[in-house]
């Protein structure tokens, strides 16, 4: 059985701070990590490797620095690593990203694709299902458990109000949640080998894709503006009776769309 795990290198957003005077994002010193949902997907694949000899390929699209995420995946136990990296792929939204990844996947042999549900820098949860659509295979998202049979996979699919157990025939794609397992650490031996092994780098010339479907040009959406939520101004303090206090709180929660 052959598995492709799509991973994204992301800034650890929990380490991101806002500069209190300028209100801008401080990106310096923020470590780059494998996106947590993706890492759990990789862990699930590596368990299948141990249990039934699955062959695990990790695939990432990103700048050359994303090499590090792939080395980490190799050190965790992946068999093969491919980095899709080309200036032409830059500026892609989820549509263009998924069409690029799908083009790379078409060059590979596989039964199952595992993507993390969503990346912590974008939180879209769109790339996985969109890859499946480009490849015209079924997908199941929000997977928290899986078992692999000979021709199909059985998964537990989470909803806000319950779950389903589903069976899908190969080839198919699933998106996984980080709660599904605890990803292993890189093994010491794996680390010492990580840079002796190959990370294939594929550019535009290596995949068969229409240039109209990739990068900024191939992206239907555009970022028109982005801004930080602003610095935390000193809050307001009210000395009031409990009833008025409750009203003030509810009003503020409404304003902030919390309720």
């Amino acid at each position: 059985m052959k598995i492709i795990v799509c991973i994204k290198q992301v800034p650890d957003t929990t380490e991101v701070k806002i500069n209190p005077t300028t209100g801008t994002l401080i990106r310096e010193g923020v470590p780059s990590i494998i996106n947590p949902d993706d890492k759990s997907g990789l862990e699930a694949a590596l368990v299948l490797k141990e249990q039934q000899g699955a062959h695990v390929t990790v695939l990432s699209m990103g700048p050359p620095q994303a090499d590090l995420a792939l080395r980490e995946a190799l050190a965790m136990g992946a068999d093969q690593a491919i980095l899709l990296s080309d200036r032409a792929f830059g500026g892609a939204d989820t549509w263009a990203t998924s069409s690029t990844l799908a083009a790379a996947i078409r060059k590979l042999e596989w039964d199952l694709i595992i993507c993390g549900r969503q990346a912590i820098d974008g939180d879209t949860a769109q790339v996985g299902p969109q890859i499946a659509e480009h490849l015209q295979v079924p997908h199941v998202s929000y997977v928290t458990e899986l078992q692999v049979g000979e021709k199909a996979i059985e998964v537990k699919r989470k909803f806000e109000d319950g779950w389903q157990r589903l069976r899908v025939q190969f080839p198919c794609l699933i998106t996984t949640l980080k709660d599904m397992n605890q990803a292993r650490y890189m093994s010491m031996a794996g680390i010492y080998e990580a840079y002796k092994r190959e990370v294939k780098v594929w550019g535009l010339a290596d995949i068969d894709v229409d240039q109209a479907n990739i990068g900024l040009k191939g992206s239907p959406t555009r970022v028109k503006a982005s801004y930080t939520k602003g610095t935390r101004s000193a809050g307001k303090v009210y000395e009031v009776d409990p009833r008025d206090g409750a009203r003030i709180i509810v009003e503020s929660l409404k304003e902030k769309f919390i309720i």
Partner: protein
Amino acid sequence: MDFQLSREHQLLATTLKDFAENEVRPLARETDEKEAFPVSTVEKMARFGMMGIPFPKDFGGAGGDNLGYIMAVEALSKVCGTTGVILSAHTSLCAAPIYEFGTDEQKRRLLPDLASGKKIGAFGLTEPNAGTDAAGQQTAAVLSGDKYILTGSKIFITNAGYADVYIVFAMTDRSKGTRGISAFIVEKGMPGFSIGKKEEKMGIRGSSTCELIFENVEVPVSNLLGREGGGFGLAMKTLDGGRIGIGAQALGLAQGAIDETVKYVKERKQFGKTIGSFQNTQFQLADMQARTDAARLLVYRAACLKDAKQPYSTEAAMAKLFASETAMAVTTMAVQLHGGYGYTREYPVERMMRDAKITEIYEGTSEVQKMVISAAVLK
């Protein structure tokens, strides 16, 4: 001269940090308070190959190096001094001498289980009357056919009770003094071998420090490590390596205390300002970090020399001397900067201070290190 870590070592540093933060830090306080050997942590360390970092893959190791190994001791010690010393004693004092001085048969028989962490190692040299003066060994081994009969006891043995393999030193010929000392591999379960009193300690309280008792223990000749009479030299060489490990433990404790202090002084306010904005705090931290970085360079240099198969005995002694005294000074300053809170168990710096003290004592006191260093200086 290149002070950059290689890419592999950078990768190693990330995973070691994650491991220490997620798996070791949460247990550190309990390990200390309950004097509980962190069995489950050691199992996890084994799973990721941490118990055999510098040994070749053929022997079940990670195929790594000593620099990587001491980085692991440092990373663990940053959050828990106990866990750091368990790894150091296991690797430097047991697996390493078997790898360096063992026969091929001994290596094949013993190293894979040690390097994979299936078995834990320990080292028994110190006796009630033979501490710094190792030549005063009372434990004796008498050859009888294809066995040595061991009698005597050892004290202050790290990992005792939890270890499966012990490197034990005994007199095979008292008339020859230090040249009459031999090293033996004693295994858990050998009849007559038992664990005696467990010490109650000031620091590294989760590490098991006990007495070893040998009552006519029959040790097969195949478990003689090195040649008969070669034990003293073997012990000294082993301790050279061990000192790098303890230097790394001290280094971790110092850096851990700095990290805790930095967090604290940015948050703690007095006189309307964070205490980190006071120059006294800033200058203290500058001292702490500069000394710790200097210690790191010494410790890393010693490890790199060992990896390069160059002499490192003096450098290891300097690394251990400087790092352990730095750890003691830095953890003490950290407690001071924490004020009253620093003296309570709610904050980890008091534990780090207690843990740091032992690094100036075991595997050769600071005074012993000075003897080693001055001998080289005056040569």
